[in-house]
Each structure stands twice: as C-alpha cells, then as structure tokens.
C-alpha cells in the first residue's frame, strides 16, 4: 500500500474521531472563552499599570490571550491528544499490536495527532477567537499574507508539540505508569509556552531561557508572527530546528524502547 495514503487515512481518522464528541467540543469552547475572559481582565489591569509591557500594546496583549485560548487544545500546550492513549497502550501491552503493523510507529501516531490538532484548530480554535474579537478590540492583521504566515507557524508548532509529547509517552516504556511525567511536563509546558503570561514579559535571564526552550514555539512564536512582532522566516527556522531535534530524539528513544520492550501480561 502507498504509505502516503496510509498515513493520510490515519490522519483523517484522527480528525473524524474527535469530531464525534460534539458536546465535549461545545464544552471546550465555553471553557476556553471563560478562561480567555479572566485573562483579558488581568492583562488589562497589568497593561494599565505598564503600557507597552513586553513590547505589546493593550490590543496586542488582548489578541495574544485569544490566540492562546484558540491554540491551547490544538497544540496541546499542556499535554493531551494521542500521548495519553499511547501511554495506556504501552501500560496494557497493546503496543505489541502496533509494533506488528507494517507502518512506522512514530509516523502513525504523528498522522493521528495531526488529524486531531487540525480538527481542534477548526472546531475549538476558531469559535473562542471569533467571540473574543466580537467582545474586545483586537490587533488583527489586515493582509492575507500575515494570516498565511501565522498558519505556517501553527503547523510547525504542531510538529514541535507532537515531538515533545511523543517523548513523554515513550517514557512509559521505562516507568510503566507515565502519568507523573505527563503531569510534570504538562505544567512546564503550560508555563513555558506562555499560556499564563506572554514570554516577552518574563524578566531578564529567565525570559531569555524560556524563549529558547521548545515550548516557546507553541504559542509565543505563532502569536508574534500574527501580531507582526517577529520575522516569519526566523521564527520558522527556530520552530523547524526544534521539530527536527525532537522528532529525531523520539526516533532514537523509540529504537531503544522497542529493543527492550517487555509486553505486560504476556
């Protein structure tokens, strides 16, 4: 079978699977909107004290909030997506079935996760953003090129996000119960991707460190492209570098894990 078509089918499957949970999607939109509202008010208080904080004006800061809420599930900044499922398969031993498939383990899960994130971008990303734009003055670009550049950055962010979560999931080969690691990485990811506070507001050395970490590719990078605060090409290079590094590391660890695989219960 044509392997490109296989992975496309897996991706479409991932998309359609998440599309079945309509109430969950509606619930998610509601929750993202509520959190967006809380953040908008706190940012407004913050930018009232210090206009131009982190190089953003108030409208840009508010736009940043809604970009964050829209991409939260798409990029799984705080973990989630296929990683939980993969860990569960490792714990129960079902992973043995996956290893028998005539498909590459990493590409298979990447395709499924890209399908999932495309669905969440459309269904859970767009509505809170539109609601935010209706309620507040946002700093949105007027030219189509910037929007396109933003979308490219989002796709690269999807690859980085998968790269991180795949490594987290593979840790279950050694730890059996990977929830602890997943949770730790979840909070680091939440904080270091700039979900609570934009990374350019972080002071001094701390700011430089968090901006160099892979998580900054998840929200800060696409947001800055949309807000016209970053050069798209430089941003892409940064994101692509992390994507390649993480995916290569995933491949390496996968090789190590499958050589020593101990299938539970059998």
């Amino acid at each position, binding site marked *: 079978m044509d392997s490109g078509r296989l992975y496309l089918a897996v991706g479409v499957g991932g998309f359609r699977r998440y599309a079945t949970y309509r109430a969950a999607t509606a619930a998610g939109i509601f*929750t993202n909107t509520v959190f967006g509202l809380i953040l908008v008010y706190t940012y407004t208080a913050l930018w009232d004290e*210090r206009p131009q904080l982190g190089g953003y004006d108030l409208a840009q800061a508010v736009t940043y909030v809604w970009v964050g809420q829209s991409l939260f599930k798409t990029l799984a900044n705080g973990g989630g997506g296929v990683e939980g499922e993969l860990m569960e398969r490792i714990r129960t031993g079902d992973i043995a079935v996956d290893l028998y498939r005539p498909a590459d383990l990493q590409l298979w899960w990447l395709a499924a996760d890209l399908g999932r994130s495309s669905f969440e971008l459309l269904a859970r990303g767009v509505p809170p953003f539109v609601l935010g734009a209706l309620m507040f003055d946002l700093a949105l670009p007027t030219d189509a090129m910037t929007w396109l550049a933003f979308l490219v950055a989002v796709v690269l962010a999807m690859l980085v996000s998968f790269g991180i979560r795949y490594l987290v999931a593979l840790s279950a080969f050694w730890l059996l119960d990977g929830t602890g690691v997943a949770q730790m990485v979840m909070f680091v990811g939440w904080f270091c991707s700039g979900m*609570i*506070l934009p990374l350019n*507001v972080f002071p001094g050395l701390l700011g430089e460190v968090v901006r160099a970490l892979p998580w900054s590719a998840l929200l800060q990078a696409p947001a800055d492209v949309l807000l016209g605060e970053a050069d798209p090409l430089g941003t892409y290079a940064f994101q692509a570098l992390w994507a390649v590094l993480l995916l290569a590391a995933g491949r390496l660890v996968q090789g190590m894990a499958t050589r020593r695989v101990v299938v539970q219960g059998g």
Partner: protein
Amino acid sequence: MISAMWIRSTMAYRASFVMTTLGNFTATAFDFVAILLMFSRVDALGGYALPEIAFLYGLSSVAFGLADLGLGSMERLGRRVRDGTLDTLLVRPAPVLAQMAADQFGLRRLGRVTQGTMVLVYALATVDIDWTPLKLLLMPVMILSGAGIFGAVFVAGAAFQFVAKDASEVQNAFTYGGTTLLQYPPTVFATELVRGVTFVLPLSFVNWLPGTYVLGRPIPLGLPEWVAFVSPLVAVACCAPAGLAWRAGLRSYRSTGS
C-alpha cells in the same frame, strides 16, 4: 475505606505518586510564579499590592484545594456514565456520592492545599492588617465556607454530567476558572462579572467579600459590611440545591448497554 484502597493502589507506583503530588504542587505554584513575575514589572494590580493579592490567592487556593481533595474526582462521573461502570457503584451498599468522592481518591491533591497554605502564610507575614478578634475568627470560617461553596460546584457539575455525558469540561470553567478568578482582586474585573459571581454563582463569598473586609478594603459592589459574615449561610444555600440536583440526576440515570 474506599479512599484507603485508592491510596494503597496509587502507592503501587511510588515514583509516579511522588511526581503527581509534586506536579500538583508545581501546577499551582506556577500560577503564583506568574503573579510574582507580573509584580517584577508593576507595583500594583487593580490597586492591590502583592501581599494583598497573595492573601486573596491563598484563601481561594486553600478553599478550592480542600474541595478538590474531597470531591475532585467527581469530574470522572461522565466517563463512568459513558462506559457503564457507574452501575458497580449503584449495587454497593454505600451512598453513590461518597463512593464517587472516594473514587481514585487522590492524596496527591494535597499538593494544591500545601501550596495555597504556603502562599497564605507568606501573605499573613507580609500584609498589613488591623487584626481584631472578629477578623481572626473569620479566617477559618471563610476557608471552610469557601470549601463548601466550591464543593457544591463540584457536585452540581457532576449532576450536570448525567445530562451532558461528555461535557465534563464545562465544569472546569467553574471550578478551575472560578479559583483563578478569585486569585485576583475584584477591582480587576468588570462590574457585571463581579455581579455575576456574587448574585448568580456566589463565588465572591469564598474570599472577595470576606477577604476585602479583613484587608480593610472597600467591599465590592458597595455592599454593606455584614455580607463578609454570611459565607457559611451561602455555603449551606449552595450545597442544598447541589445535593438535590445530584439526587435528581442519579434518579434519572439509565445505564448504558444492554
């Protein structure tokens, strides 16, 4: 007893237990680190200084942490309804609510209470309050009532899941969203929003109304001073309908499957 069973079972994966407890601690710690970072750039937020915000933050975190420790696993109800495992609880000779609360009882949730307590201790050490016996008495009352109010939200959210089976995320907006909201001063938010969480979903009674009284700050919405003392009544008034909703939900439950 069921809680003890779950505690034993989580101990089976000890490394993971340590990490999830630390994770819970870190989760909430990051929230507060974000506030500290904000204060590295500004001196006040909504007119409140850092120790005052830490005071509100600590109160909200501890109250929410206690409710989460007891009832946080209620959010799993939707899943149990979907996969039919709720039936197991129905045939056991113990209240379903208690069993649900004990389900996957997470001792790791102590991480949140610990972190909230630490921030509260820091706040009490640095904040400038004119202590009176009345204000001292209000402290434990406020925390326990707050836990009661959040607990009611958890139970009501679970009851809602009998209707909307896979919409457990709505609950997060009110639980996690609620505690995040209360961690900032009421002056930050639009008046309509403050009105909403005072008169519709009375989260204000967890810390905003009693807390501003203790701090000697103007009480939100120009309400009279005595509202600082009605939190226990509000907690009871919240728990009653939440309990009724839970019973109605449980009664309407139809098992999945054959």
